[in-house]
């Protein structure tokens, strides 16, 4: 196969995971821009949105970190064996 056509499996996995996260969180605006509208500026409170958002993405963040740690371990295991 022409090497330029080959898509990195890491990229595919990343894109799929990201799209799944968006759907899971019903955060479709991460895929598409959202119309600009909102409450009166003087009473806008960005803090609550930030706290709720962290709880929303928390699962994905934990999974991401765990995957990263295991991926490192697997890589270390193999690099040690080939040496």
């Amino acid at each position, binding site marked *: 196969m022409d090497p330029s056509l080959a898509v990195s499996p890491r990229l595919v996995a990343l894109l799929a995971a990201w799209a799944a996260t968006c759907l899971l969180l019903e955060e479709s605006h*991460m895929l598409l821009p959202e119309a600009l509208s909102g409450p009166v500026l003087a009473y806008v409170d960005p803090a609550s949105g930030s706290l709720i*958002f*962290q709880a929303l993405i928390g699962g994905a963040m934990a999974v991401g970190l765990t995957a990263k740690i295991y991926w490192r371990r697997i890589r270390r295991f193999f690099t040690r064996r080939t040496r």
Partner: protein
Amino acid sequence: MTERLAASFRDPAGFVFRRDGDLYRQINSSYLENYNMLRRSGLYDELVSQRLLIPHVETDLAAVEPTRGDLVIRPDLVRFISYPYEWCPSQLLAAAEVTLRVQQMAMRFGMSLRDASGYNVQFHNGQPTLIDTLSFERLEEGTPWKAYSQYCRHFLGPLALMRHVDVRLSQLLRTEIDGIPLDLASTLLPARTRLHAGLAIHIHGHAGSQRRHADGARVPEDRQRLSQRALAGLIDSLVATTLKQRWEPRKSDWRDYYEAQRSYTDLAQQHKSEIVSRILQLERPDSVCDLGANTGRFSKLAAGATGASVLALEMDVASVELHWQELRKDDNWRVLPLVADLSNPSPAQGWGHSERGSLQERTQVEVVLALALLHHLAIGNNVPLRHVFEWFARLGSTVVVEWIPKDDPMVQHLLANRTDIFDDYRADAFEDAAREFFTIEDKIDISASPRSIYVLRRR
């Protein structure tokens, strides 16, 4: 004389004050428990040994407000205070990295940062260092990171805007004093950044969530729970996303800078360096400000010749970036390069015009270097010579200034497409204007060049 500094007036944990030239911080009783935890857990020692937190000593000084607390600490003094809108992209990135490293280390000791403001990081001996000792609090298991939004507004948003839109957008930080609002960052970033997992989450998704919950309704506890692993994952993801925002100037930009420095013959350049070096060795200043520092040739010379702390101000972001990168490579921590447009320097701003100091009040030095600068101010910016000297006199007591006559090719370059309305741009008028504020101590002609160097002493 005790003077409370305006920058810390919002913090209930304590405040900063100045007494007899030294800087102190009162720690209020309400914060004492967290402060003790910072010291006793070993976190303080670990952070200070890695130069991530400003060191301090506990004093027996009487509290300024004894009803609120009785502990006063004296932190090390930062020589030049600078602000995020004066940093080049790599400086902001370095400050962001330090903030996240501090948070990661704090978590290992059961603590967390309650702020992630860019103003809490200062360049201390060349190293970005957290200066707010009162930023730490006990980490309560299961709670989210309070400073997440502030981190994104102060660091990630501006870095992403510089990287993906235009490096000049860092200047938004000058008007948005608590960081660039995430909805604004999200609107300005190109659509393709929604395909970057990190930016899609921490900027676009985050902004959307803020917009949807902007009514300020109380968030129930169970809707803001975050496991320890999730919190660690969040910070890890912020580290990875932040490191991807490194600004890459085009290769041709760099070449332009090296080329632009060739307005001198090698002989003249060398003679100019010798003159400046000799003057500085005689003056032996503790502090120098290099105005229009470019990529720092003379800042380095000043730091090397005298061991002085040097503030290197330059308008061009790419030059400051290159300068900063070279300083890091050489491990030179005496020079602090900053982005500053001398025709419109950072103002005093924030609450009561005193939360953030003007560049001028932060630039009090012994020697001012103004080399290859005068024509930019007097001709490029139409500033009368008298006003230039009046301003120099406000910055320092000794000025080393280069006179560049009108027939110099660089001056002619500035005049190429303009009417020459600068009849007063002559050596005799220059000297007269200088004498209004200074005495002329010395004048040395640069060989193989029509330019000369003057040493001026404030009256």
